[in-house]
């Protein structure tokens, strides 16, 4: 009888211990999730602050000052550019087709997606 009782008690104890272990593991997991979430929020916040700092230091004025500090701009010497470098010779920029023309009165070519209400 005592042996049976001992087995019951030990079994209950083992069950309890197992449940506690699972509970602890769950708590640990939730804690790590929470910590990860907080870390993520901190990282996002650092990102936001860095973006603001970068923006503040790369305003057109700041870039202009930095460019001036480098000295006058020089036109690259085409001869100094190796021909095998891809895109070394910039393709000529095609002049866009005029949206109208003073000479040809080419005005009635409709632009796409335009609904004219007179």
């Amino acid at each position, binding site marked *: 009888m005592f042996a049976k009782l001992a087995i019951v008690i030990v079994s209950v104890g083992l069950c309890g211990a197992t449940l506690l272990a699972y509970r602890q593991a769950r708590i640990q997991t939730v804690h790590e999730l929470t910590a990860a979430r907080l870390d993520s929020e901190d990282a996002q916040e650092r990102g936001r602050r860095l973006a603001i700092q970068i923006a503040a230091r790369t305003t057109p*004025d700041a870039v202009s000052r930095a460019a001036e500090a480098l000295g006058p701009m020089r036109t690259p010497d085409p001869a100094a550019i190796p021909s095998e470098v891809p895109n070394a010779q910039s393709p000529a920029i095609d002049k866009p087709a005029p949206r109208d023309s003073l000479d040809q009165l080419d005005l009635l070519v409709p632009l796409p*997606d335009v609904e004219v209400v007179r």
Partner: protein
Amino acid sequence: MTQSDRAAIVARITAWGLGAMLVIVVLRVGQLQLSPGARLDAMVSERMSATPLPGIRGELRDRRGRLLSATSLGERVFIDPEAVTAPADVVIAQVGEALALEGDEMDMLALRIVDAMEDNAERRAARAQGEADAPDLIRYRLLTGVVDSQRAQAVKALRLAGVHIERRPVRSYPGAGLAAALVGKVDAEQAGALGAERAHDSELRGTDGRVRFVRDARGRPLWVGDGALRPAEAGGDVRLSIDIEMQRIAVEELERGSAECDAAGGRIIVVDPYTGEVLAMADRFGDVSGLAEFPWADKDGNGPNPYDGRVGERPRYRTLKPDPWRDIEPSLARNRCVEDVYEPGSTFKPFVWAAVTQSGRHAVDDIIDTEGGVWTTPYRRRVEDVTRRDEMTWGEVLRFSSNIGLVKATQDLSHEWLRDVVVSLGFGSRTNIGLGGEAAGLVRSEKGWDKYTQTSVSFGHEIAVTPLQMARAFSVFARGGDLAGSLPTLTLRQIGDVRLSLVQRVFDPAVVVQARRVLRQVAERVEEKMERREGEAGWRYSMFGKSGTAEIPLGAAPDDKRKPRGIRGYFEDQYNSSFVAAGPVEVPQIVVMVVIDDPGPGRIRAKRHYGSDTAGPVARRVIERTLGYLGVPGDLERAGDDDGEAVAAR
């Protein structure tokens, strides 16, 4: 009873006893979990704390994605007076040292802490005396504004009971310096209060969330309670139509032009005529000293003669309404491009000219008798031209800005017709661009529109417009294709494509082309002057435009004052000089509107105060630099300029 029977009884009793104890322990655990007592509940509650999750406000960016304003989280120090255990002087000294406060700031900190504690002592006493309306105890008193994270960490490290740090959204404006009035500002609750922040508030605003943490003995978050997380939702980002680089170009050239003219101020707007996007908008007050207030006369009209002496020797009067907030906080400045109206003068003539041309009354080559430059209308009103000729072609009437030619062309046309043209160009109605305080301008009512108005409006008087309205209206000449002659809807927000569903047609495309051709000749005169006077030449881009010079109205007299006798309703020898332009001529990409407010006496004496002398060069330079920045191929580039020598020479 045998020994084995006794053993069996003992074993049974022990088993029942242990079993009962196990049941009791299980029940107790269940009771503690489900219904803890008040004392335990209080202890558990201290380990649970709710934290607000701020919904981060969206970012404002310029059209190329440059950050204009953004929100980050700042930290503030607050005190819970009920939780403070250390003496007040210790708290003040330690917190003040951690925050590196001195002088008045230290005094303010001490005042806040002591006040909160004394208030609570009084409230506690009131409660003890059983006062029913005794206020609740203070559990939150802010000690600082937003502090940097280093100082916040120093305060945290003190581990003072009752002294806490809270995180709070802070709006920063890293790229908005040149466009402060456009970008605007948020209020203390992070709601848009001014400018684009206000106009797009509903999109930018985030939704706050909330989380309840279970914390350890040191207050560090252990985990989130079940169902205790309501996530915050960040607001959406908004891209404005403005381009910060174009804004810089506009501001630089406006400041240069205003300084060269010793002007009291200047205004500039750059617009994409196709999409209606406002690319840049700025206004400046000039650094002019010694401006005098206009000497209004008393009720009987008696007072000093305001114009005793020659220009330059007599006082120069203040013509711009003061804007005291401008120097304190740029975003609080009055946006004079949308709030302050002016008489457009001759910059209004292209609209009247195009309307008359469209009506068929005159063709470009028709000869108009301009009476040698001085003419009296049938109702005895004297009209003069700056360029005096016996006759001009209808095209020259616009090119040389002939008042007489335009008055003659409109005097027999119906008042309703001219007023309809003015209204259909958007004058007298707001652009509804979303900026606060926008003025609608002034256009006479149908009833009040008489023959004097008909004459005045022909050359841009007796009408008040904002620079923004002028930029919108002039876009009818800058739009091409099927949009030529139509009025855009202006917007401060970037538009992804040129999909427009509603276009208000004002002029026929053929009329637009004729007007543009004449206006190109006007702009060439500006370029000739710039080359002759400043040696500025070698432009890469063509432009067309129109200058205007108009007197500045005195405005309403203060209470108990009136206009001095013999003084018209305008400042004498003080003008608003303006130029509205677009370029390149064949494929206009931008419209630029410049107003130079009140060029200085030196310019007046030298007769170089006209729009073509003051605002014209600003528009010319802005068009050149802006189109270059946009990468538009130059339409005036000569062969041999490709190496950039012409550009470098400028």
